[in-house]
C-alpha cells in the first residue's frame, strides 16, 4: 500500500521543526519562518551532545545491532526532510531458523547478510518532558524511515542525557495522526508566511528565543500602540 507522495523537494519542511511546533507554535514560526535563532545554555549543551551523535561517516556494529549516525531522512508523503541522530538496525532472525517475520517488518541492507529492522533513537539533552514533542519528533523520523525503506515500524526510543537512559516509545496510531496534523498546520502557515502571535506561559522562561519573541510584552501590548503618541502628547500638554 504505497502512500501518496504529496510533496516535492521544494516544499519540504525541516523535520526538527515538528518538535518546535509541538512545543510552541510561535517558537516554530520564529525559527522556521523568520529564520531567527538564538543560543542559550540549553541549546548549546544540546548541540555539544548531538556533536557526538552527529558523525555520518561513523557506523558500528554491536552484536546484532548496526548503528548508523546522522542518517539523512526524507518523507514526501508528509513533506519534511531532516536527519536522525541514530538509527539502529536490529538483526532479525530469519524465517529459516524458526521465527516468522514478514517482509514489511524488516529489510535487507546493502553489503550485509540477513534482515534488519530499523529502530530510530533520538538523543535529548534533558529529561523526559511533560508534553509529547520529543515523541512526535521521533515518530516523524520513524514515518520517514517507513517511507524510505518500505517497512512498518512499531517502536523507537528517546535517549535522555540527563538521566543517561532510554525510554522506549511505541509508535501508536494516535501519535502518527498527531504528526500528520502538526505538519499539515505547519505547511499551511509556512506557505502563508504567518508568524503566530506570542502567548506568554511558564514554558517561556527557558526558551532561547525569549528576547526575540518578547511574549510578555507583545501578548498584552499589541493593542496599546495606537494611543501611544497621543498619550504622550496629552501628558505633555496637560
Amino acid at each position, binding site marked *: 500500500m504505497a502512500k501518496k507522495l504529496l510533496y516535492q523537494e521544494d516544499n519540504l519542511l525541516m523535520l526538527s521543526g515538528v518538535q518546535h511546533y509541538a512545543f510552541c507554535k510561535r517558537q516554530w514560526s520564529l525559527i522556521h*519562518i*523568520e*529564520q*531567527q*535563532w*538564538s543560543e542559550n545554555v540549553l541549546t548549546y549543551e544540546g548541540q555539544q551532545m548531538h556533536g557526538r551523535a552527529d558523525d555520518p561517516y561513523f557506523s558500528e556494529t554491536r552484536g546484532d545491532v548496526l548503528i548508523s549516525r546522522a542518517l539523512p531522512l526524507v518523507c514526501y508523503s508528509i513533506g519534511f526532510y531532516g536527519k536522525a541522530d541514530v538509527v539502529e538496525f536490529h538483526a532479525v532472525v530469519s524465517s529459516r531458523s524458526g521465527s516468522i517475520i514478514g517482509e514489511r517488518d524488516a529489510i535487507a541492507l546493502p553489503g550485509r547478510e540477513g534482515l534488519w529492522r530499523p529502530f530510530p533513537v533520538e538523543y535529548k539533552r534533558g529529561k523526559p518532558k511533560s508534553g509529547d514533542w520529543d515523541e512526535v519528533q521521533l515518530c516523524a523520523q520513524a514515518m520517514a524511515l517507513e517511507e524510505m525503506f518500505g517497512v512498518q515500524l512499531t517502536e523507537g526510543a528517546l535517549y535522555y542525557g540527563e538521566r543517561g537512559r532510554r525510554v522506549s516509545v511505541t509508535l501508536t496510531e494516535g501519535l502518527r495522526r498527531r504528526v500528520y496534523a502538526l505538519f499539515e498546520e505547519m505547511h499551511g502557515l509556512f506557505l502563508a*508566511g504567518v*508568524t503566530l*502571535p*506570542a502567548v506568554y506561559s511558564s514554558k517561556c522562561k527557558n526558551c532561547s528565543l525569549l*528576547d*526575540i519573541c*518578547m511574549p510578555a*510584552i*507583545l501578548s498584552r*501590548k*499589541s*493593542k496599546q*500602540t*495606537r494611543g*501611544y*503618541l*497621543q498619550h*504622550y*502628547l496629552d501628558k*505633555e*500638554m496637560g
Partner: protein
Amino acid sequence: MRKLLNTLYITSPSSYLTREGENIIVKAEDRDPLRMPIHILESIVTVGYAGASPSLMQLCAERGVSLSFLQENGQFMASVHGKTTGNVLLRRKQYRLADGERAAIYAKRFIFAKIANSRTVLNRAIRDHGSNIASDKVNKEADFLKRYLNKVLTVPGLDDIRGIEGEAARRYFSAFNELILADKESFYLRGRNRRPPLDRVNALLSYTYTLLRLEVQSALETVGLDPAAGFLHRDRPGRPSLALDLMEELRAYMADRLVLSLINRKQIHANDFTIKENGAVLLKPDLKKELITAWQKRKREEIRHPFLDEIIPIGLLPYSQALLLARTIRGDLEEYPPFLWK
C-alpha cells in the same frame, strides 16, 4: 531584553585580528597580543586599516557579533555578516511598506519621537541650568517644538513630515548654543553642517552620530531588516536610509546629550581639534578615543524603557527599537512605538 555586551574598538591601524578557538586575538606591533573570549562581545569596530582573518570573520558571523570596518575619519567601509540574519518575508514586507502609503505612518512616529526627545533636551537644560542660560530663548524654541509635535501627527504625506522635521531641527539647533555652558568661545554651533564640519560642536556631533549610526545599522541587521530601505529617508545607493530613519528618535537622547555633557564638564578642550586651512574641523585621534570611551560608558547607564516598561542599558536602545520595528512590520504590534524620553 537581552544583555548588553561589550563593543571592542580597535583604533590602532596596524592591528590584526585573528581567532584561536573561541577567542579573538588582537595583534599589534607595539604590544603583546590581546586575547578575549568571543562570547563577551557584542560587536567589534575597527577604525583605520586594521585587518582580520577569515576565520575570525566566521566566528563573528556564527556568534552574531558584528564586525565593522571604518575609515580613519569614521566613514563606514564594510562589515561582516553571517547567514542567519536574512529573513526574506520581513524584508519584502519592509520594501512593500517603504513603497506604499503606510511609510508615512512609520516616518511620522520616528519624527514625532525625534522632536519630542529634542524638546526634552531643551527642557532638561532649563530645569537643570535655568539660572545660567538664556531660558527665554530655549523656552521659546521648546514651545515651537511642542507645536510641531502636534502638527506632525496630523499631516498626511512624507514631504510634509520632512518639512516639519527640517523646521524642528532648525529650531532645536538654534537653541543648542544656549545649552553650552563652558568655553563658549570655542564651542558654538553655527547651524548644523557636516561635510565638512565647520565648528567643534558640529565635528563632535558628526562623530557621535557615526557611532550611533553604526549601532543602529547593526541592530537593524541583527533583527533581519534591511538598513538601506528607509521610510522617511529616500533610497540612495550607499545610504543606510532605514538606519537614518531609526536614528532620528535616538539622536538627541543618545548623542546630543553626550556631546553637551562632555563640553560642559570640560572633558573636551578647544585644542583637541585640528582646524584645516579651509575651516574644516577635525577631531584629533586622542579625542576620538575619549569620545569612544565616553560613549561606551554611557551605553552602560540604565533607563526605564517607556514602552517595554523594563530597565535596560542605554546601549540596547538601538536594538530594542529595531526589534520593536521588526515586530511591528511582521504584525505583532499595530503601530510602531518609538523611544520617547520622559
